[in-house]
C-alpha cells in the first residue's frame, strides 16, 4: 500500500460541510427547549445601581430572568485568567473579578448584565427590552496608549496595569547598544482585530434532573477545557455530571478556545429551570463580545553595525487586555510574544518589556498567531527600516543575520531544532522574481502607479510544550495531547483525538496518519473528536499544535496497537514475537509466507476463542480487545519558518493599494497533506493581509464600538487577493516522530509585515496598519508636497 503521508487526499469532511449537512450547535434542538437572550451593557463603564425585571417578567412567554444577584446567591464562580504572569519586580499579575453576569459594575459595551429566558427567541428579545437597568455612567478608558494615565477602572489595580513583564537582560542590551554604530527606532501600533468566525458563538444546555447531568453543546475549539473550567471554576456541575460537546464548529481563530459567560450561564440556567436553554449569538453580539485580538502599542529599537550586523534589540510594548483578563489574554502578549521578539536572527542581546493594561473594551485574547504576529511585525518592519537606513538590500541584511547552524539557541528562550532560513529566502526570491522587481516597478510607473516590494522572514513557535515547563511559566493547564485508537471487531478503526477540528481538516490528515501506521484503508478510519464523553481528556486545537502534538499521540497509540498485534499474531501463527514483522497492515513471520492481517488480529482480539475447543489467540497476560491510548507531551515546541515576499501597486490619486503578487515559502517540516496545508496558508494569508490593509476594530472615545457590523468592519473578500504563489522547503522537526511543524498561523504571522513593507516601499513613508486608501493617499500627498517644496 502506497504511503498516504504527503499526498493530496481530498478532505473527507468537505462533502458534509459543503452540502449543508454539517451539524452545528445552532442546529441542535431539544424538546421543551427555551431561548436565552442577554441584556448587555450599552455603556463602556458604569455602576449598576438597580436592575428591575418586574415588567419584563410579565412579558409574554418569559420563563425566567436571571441577574448578577442570582450568580452571587448561587455562588457561581467568575471567568478565569488561565495563565499567571509575574511582573519584573516579582509581584503577581492583578486580575479583576469577572462574574458571568455583572452585579455591581459593567466594564465594556456588551458586558453581560442579565439573561432573559423565554419560550421563543422573539419573546426573550422583546422582554429583554423591558429589563430596566439603572446605570451611573462613568468615564471610560479606551486608549491603549493612555490607559496607564487614565481613570482607574478597578479599585485594587493602580494605573490599570495587570503586569509589567520583562524577558531578557536590560544590562546586556545596554552594553550592546553602547557599541552600536547606529540605532534604528520604530513606533508601531498593532491594530486591534475582531475574529469574525463564520459561525457565531452558540450554546445549548440540556439538564436531566433525574441524573443531574448537564449536556452542553457549544461552539468550542476545546470542549475538555470548557468542561473543566465550567466545573472546577464556575462550579456549575461536577466534571462527571457535565458533558460538553463541540459538534461541527465553523471556525474559531482562537476566539473559541475557552468558555465565555454565555456557556456558563446557559448551563447554570438549564439546571435552575430544569429545561434546555439555547443561545445563539447574532452577528452584532459576536462583534461586541467575542474576545478581540492584537492591540499593541510598541516602541522598539535595533542596534546595528554599519555592515548590517545586529547587535541588540529592545521592545517596549503596551498590550491592551480589554476589560478583563481572559483565559489566554495574559500569555498572548508575554510568552507567546516575547520569546519570538528577535525573529529569525542571531541577536546577541535582547529584551522585551510588556505592560498589560485594562481598558473598557471587550476582552482581548488569542487570535490566529497570538503574540507571534505582533512580534514578527515589530522585528520585520524594524529590520526593513534598518536596511533602508543603512542603504542595504532588505534581503541582504536578513541573510547576513540568519543563523546557519541548527539547533539554534536564540537569545531569549527558544532552542530551535531545525530550519534553513537562507534556503527559504532564496527560494522565495526565486519564485517572486526578486531580481525583476525594478523592471516591474518601471512598468507600473509608466501607468502612474507606485509599485513596492516587501519581505518578511519569520519563525513561529507552536505546539507549546512540554507541560512541566509550560506550567512552571504560569500556565494553568498542561499542553500534551491524547489519542485513542480503537479497532472495531470487524477491522475498521475509530481514532479519538483530544484536539478539535473546526476547519483544519483533521478528519482527513489524521486518518492519513492512522492509515499509514496501521495499514488500514483510509475509508475504514473515522476520526472522532469534540465530545468529552467519547474520547479521553485533551487540550483542543489552537496555536498550530494539533498535528505535531495530537498527530504524534495517534502515532504512539498506533505503535501500542501494533505491539499488541505482534504478540497476538505470534500466538496465532505459532511463532516467536521477535520474528513477527509488521508492514502494510500485515503481521508476517520473518522469512516465511505465514501472516495475519491486522483485521484478522483485531477480530481475534474481540472474539478470543475457537469453536469446538478451548483455545485462545491471546497470549497469556494479554486482555481481549484492541484499543490503545496515548498521551503525548513533546519535549519542545515546533518551529516552522519561512520567507514571504509581497508586491503592491498603489494608485497615488486614490491611495488604493492593490496586491499584485504574493509569494510564500514556508518550512512546515514534513507535510502530511499538501492540499490541506495550502488551504491553511491561504486562510492565514487572507487574515494577515486583512490586518495589513483592511481590518480595524474601532471604538470611539466613549467606548462605543463603531465597527460593530460588516457595514463598517472591513473583512477582506476574495477579490482583494491575487493568486498566491506558494513554495515549501523542508527541514523535519526533531521533536516529534512525524517531523511535522505547525502551519495554521504562518500566513497570519508573515503577511502583515510583508504587505506593510511593500506599501512603505512603494510610497516611501512609514504608515500604520491598516493601510487604508485614505491613509495611503494622505501619505502620498505629503510626499508630493515635500517633493515640490524641495524642488
Amino acid at each position, binding site marked *: 500500500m502506497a504511503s498516504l503521508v504527503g499526498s493530496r487526499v481530498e478532505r473527507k469532511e468537505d462533502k458534509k460541510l459543503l452540502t449543508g449537512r454539517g451539524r452545528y450547535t445552532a442546529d441542535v434542538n431539544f424538546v421543551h427547549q427555551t431561548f436565552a437572550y442577554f441584556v448587555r451593557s450599552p455603556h463602556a463603564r458604569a455602576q449598576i445601581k438597580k436592575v428591575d425585571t418586574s415588567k419584563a417578567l410579565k412579558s409574554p412567554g418569559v420563563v425566567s430572568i436571571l441577574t448578577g444577584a442570582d450568580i452571587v446567591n448561587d455562588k457561581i464562580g467568575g471567568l478565569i485568567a488561565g495563565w499567571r504572569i509575574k511582573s519584573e519586580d516579582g509581584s503577581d499579575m492583578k486580575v479583576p473579578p469577572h462574574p458571568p453576569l455583572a452585579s455591581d459594575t459593567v466594564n465594556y459595551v456588551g458586558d453581560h448584565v442579565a439573561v432573559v429566558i423565554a419560550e421563543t427567541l422573539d419573546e426573550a428579545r422583546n422582554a429583554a427590552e423591558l429589563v430596566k437597568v439603572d446605570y451611573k455612567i462613568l468615564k471610560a478608558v479606551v486608549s491603549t496608549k493612555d490607559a496607564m494615565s487614565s481613570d482607574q477602572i478597578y479599585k485594587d489595580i493602580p494605573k490599570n496595569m495587570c503586569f509589567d513583564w520583562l524577558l531578557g537582560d536590560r544590562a546586556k542590551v545596554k552594553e550592546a547598544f553602547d557599541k552600536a554604530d547606529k540605532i534604528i527606532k520604530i513606533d508601531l501600533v498593532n491594530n486591534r482585530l475582531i475574529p469574525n468566525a463564520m459561525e457565531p458563538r452558540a450554546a445549548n444546555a440540556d439538564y436531566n434532573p433525574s441524573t443531574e447531568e448537564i449536556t452542553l453543546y457549544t461552539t468550542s475549539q476545546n470542549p475538555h477545557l470548557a468542561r473543566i473550567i465550567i466545573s472546577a471554576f464556575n462550579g456549575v456541575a461536577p466534571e462527571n455530571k457535565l458533558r460538553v460537546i463541540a459538534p461541527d464548529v465553523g471556525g474559531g481563530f482562537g476566539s473559541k478556545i475557552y468558555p465565555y459567560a454565555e456557556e456558563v450561564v446557559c448551563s447554570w440556567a438549564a439546571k435552575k429551570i430544569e429545561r434546555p436553554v439555547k443561545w445563539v449569538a447574532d452577528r452584532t453580539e459576536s462583534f461586541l463580545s467575542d474576545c478581540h485580538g492584537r492591540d499593541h502599542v510598541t516602541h522598539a529599537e535595533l542596534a546595528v553595525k554599519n555592515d548590517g550586523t545586529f547587535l541588540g534589540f529592545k521592545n517596549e510594548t503596551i498590550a491592551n487586555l480589554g476589560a478583563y483578563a481572559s483565559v489566554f489574554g495574559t500569555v498572548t502578549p508575554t510568552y507567546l510574544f516575547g520569546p519570538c521578539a528577535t525573529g529569525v536572527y542571531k541577536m546577541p542581546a535582547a529584551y522585551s518589556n510588556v505592560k498589560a493594561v485594562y481598558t473598557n473594551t471587550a476582552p482581548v485574547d488569542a487570535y490566529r498567531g497570538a503574540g507571534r504576529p505582533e512580534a514578527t511585525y515589530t522585528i520585520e518592519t524594524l529590520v526593513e527600516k534598518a536596511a533602508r537606513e543603512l542603504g542595504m538590500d532588505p534581503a541582504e541584511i536578513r541573510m547576513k543575520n540568519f543563523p546557519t547552524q541548527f539547533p539554534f539557541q536564540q537569545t531569549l528562550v527558544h532552542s530551535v531544532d531545525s530550519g534553513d532560513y537562507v534556503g527559504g529566502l532564496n527560494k522565495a526570491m526565486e519564485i517572486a522574481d526578486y531580481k525583476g522587481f525594478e523592471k516591474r516597478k518601471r512598468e507600473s510607473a509608466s501607468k502612474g502607479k507606485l509599485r513596492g516590494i516587501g519581505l518578511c522572514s519569520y519563525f513561529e513557535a507552536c505546539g507549546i510544550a512540554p507541560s512541566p515547563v509550560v506550567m512552571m511559566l504560569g500556565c494553568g493547564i498542561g499542553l500534551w495531547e491524547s489519542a485513542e485508537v480503537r479497532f472495531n471487531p470487524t477491522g475498521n478503526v475509530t481514532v479519538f483525538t483530544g484536539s478539535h477540528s473546526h476547519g483544519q481538516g483533521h478528519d482527513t490528515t489524521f486518518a492519513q496518519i492512522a492509515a499509514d501506521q496501521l495499514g488500514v484503508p483510509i475509508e475504514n478510519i473515522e476520526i472522532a473528536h469534540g465530545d468529552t464523553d467519547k474520547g479521553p481528556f485533551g487540550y483542543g486545537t489552537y496555536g498550530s499544535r494539533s498535528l505535531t502534538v495530537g498527530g504524534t499521540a495517534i502515532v504512539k497509540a498506533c505503535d501500542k496497537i501494533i505491539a499488541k498485534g505482534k504478540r497476538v499474531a505470534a500466538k496465532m501463527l505459532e511463532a516467536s514475537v521477535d520474528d513477527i514483522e509488521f508492514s502494510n497492515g500485515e503481521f508476517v513471520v520473518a522469512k516465511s509466507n505465514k501472516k495475519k492481517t491486522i483485521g484478522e488480529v483485531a477480530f481475534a482480539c474481540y472474539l478470543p476463542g475457537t469453536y469446538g475447543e478451548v483455545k485462545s489467540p491471546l497470549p497469556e497476560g494479554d486482555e481481549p480487545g484492541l484499543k490503545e491510548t496515548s498521551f503525548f507531551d513533546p519535549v519542545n515546541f515546533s518551529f516552522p519558518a519561512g520567507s514571504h515576499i509581497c508586491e503592491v501597486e498603489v494608485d497615488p490619486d486614490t491611495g488604493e493599494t492593490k496586491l499584485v503578487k504574493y509569494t510564500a515559502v514556508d518550512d512546515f517540516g514534513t507535510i502530511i497533506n499538501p492540499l490541506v496545508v495550502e488551504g491553511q496558508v491561504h486562510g492565514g494569508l487572507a487574515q494577515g493581509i486583512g490586518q495589513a490593509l483592511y481590518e480595524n476594530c*474601532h471604538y470611539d472615545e466613549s467606548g462605543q464600538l463603531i465597527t460593530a457590523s460588516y457595514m463598517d468592519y472591513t473583512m477582506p473578500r476574495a477579490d482583494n487577493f491575487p493568486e498566491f504563489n506558494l513554495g515549501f522547503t523542508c527541514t523535519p522537526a526533531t521533536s516529534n516522530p512525524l517531523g511535522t511543524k505547525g502551519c495554521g498561523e504562518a500566513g497570519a504571522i508573515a503577511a502583515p509585515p510583508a504587505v506593510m513593507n511593500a506599501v512603505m516601499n512603494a510610497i516611501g513613508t512609514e504608515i500604520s496598519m491598516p493601510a487604508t*486608501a485614505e491613509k495611503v493617499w494622505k501619505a502620498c500627498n505629503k510626499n508630493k508636497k515635500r517633493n515640490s517644496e524641495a524642488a
Partner: protein
Amino acid sequence: MKTFNYHSAKDVKEASKLASSNSAFLAGGMTTIPSIKLGLATYKDIINIKNIKSLSGIKASSKTLKIGATTKHVEVANSKDVKKAIPSLAALAEGIGDPQVRNRGTIGGSIANNDPSADYPSACIALNAVIHTNSRKIEAEKFFKGMFETALKSGEIIEAIEFSIPEKSNYQKYPNPASRYAVVGVYVAKHKGEVNVAVTGAKSCVYNDKDLAKALSKNFSSSVIDNVKISSSGMNSDIHASAEYRANMIRVFAKKAVEAC
C-alpha cells in the same frame, strides 16, 4: 422582531388605501426587512406590492427609458433595452450590492429609501429622471429631499422611473471597502445642451455638482476637472473617508467617468 399585519395588494389603488403613517410598502425588502429584524423599524402594516404586475417592466422609446418601480436590479442589469439605450445604467445596476440583493432589490425601493450612498439616486439626477407616482410626476431634482427623505407623501407609491436617454454617460464609484456601498459615486451624463454630474455618497443626499456640470458643458473633457474647485464643506466624514478625501475622490472619479464616456 415585533409582529405586524401583512397585506398583499393586488393593485396600486388597494396598496395606497392600506397605507397609513405606521405602514411600509414591501417590494424587494432589502432595507425594510433587515431594519425590522434589527429592531430599527417597527410597522403596524406591511403592504406587499410585488404582486402588482403593472409596477414591473422596462419600456424603451426613442427619448426615454421607463422602468417600473418593482423592476429588480438584475433585470435592469441584464435588459437589452437598457444596455442599448443607457449602458451606464445597466452597469450601475450590475454593481449594486451582491447577487442576492440584485435578485430581490428594486429600483423603486432604492430611490424611495434614498440612502445617501445608494447608486440609483445619482442615475435619476444625472439622467433627468421623472418619478411617476400614483398621483403625480416628480422631477428627480425635486424628489430627493435629504437623508432618507423624499418628496413622497404618505400612501404615495412610485409606479415608474422615466430616464432621459443621454448622448453619453458613465457611472464610477469608490465602494466602501467594508459595505461596498458608494463612499463616493459620480454619474456623468452628457445630454444635448447640458451635462449633469450627479454625486452620491459624499453628502447627506445625492446632488448635481453644478460647477463640474458647468465646466463640462463648456468642454466635455476630463482635463477641465482639475480647474474646478470641489469644496469638502458639508461632506460626510466617517471612519472610512474624511470629507477632504471624499472631495478628492469626486475629482478622481469624475475624471474616470468622463474618460469612460
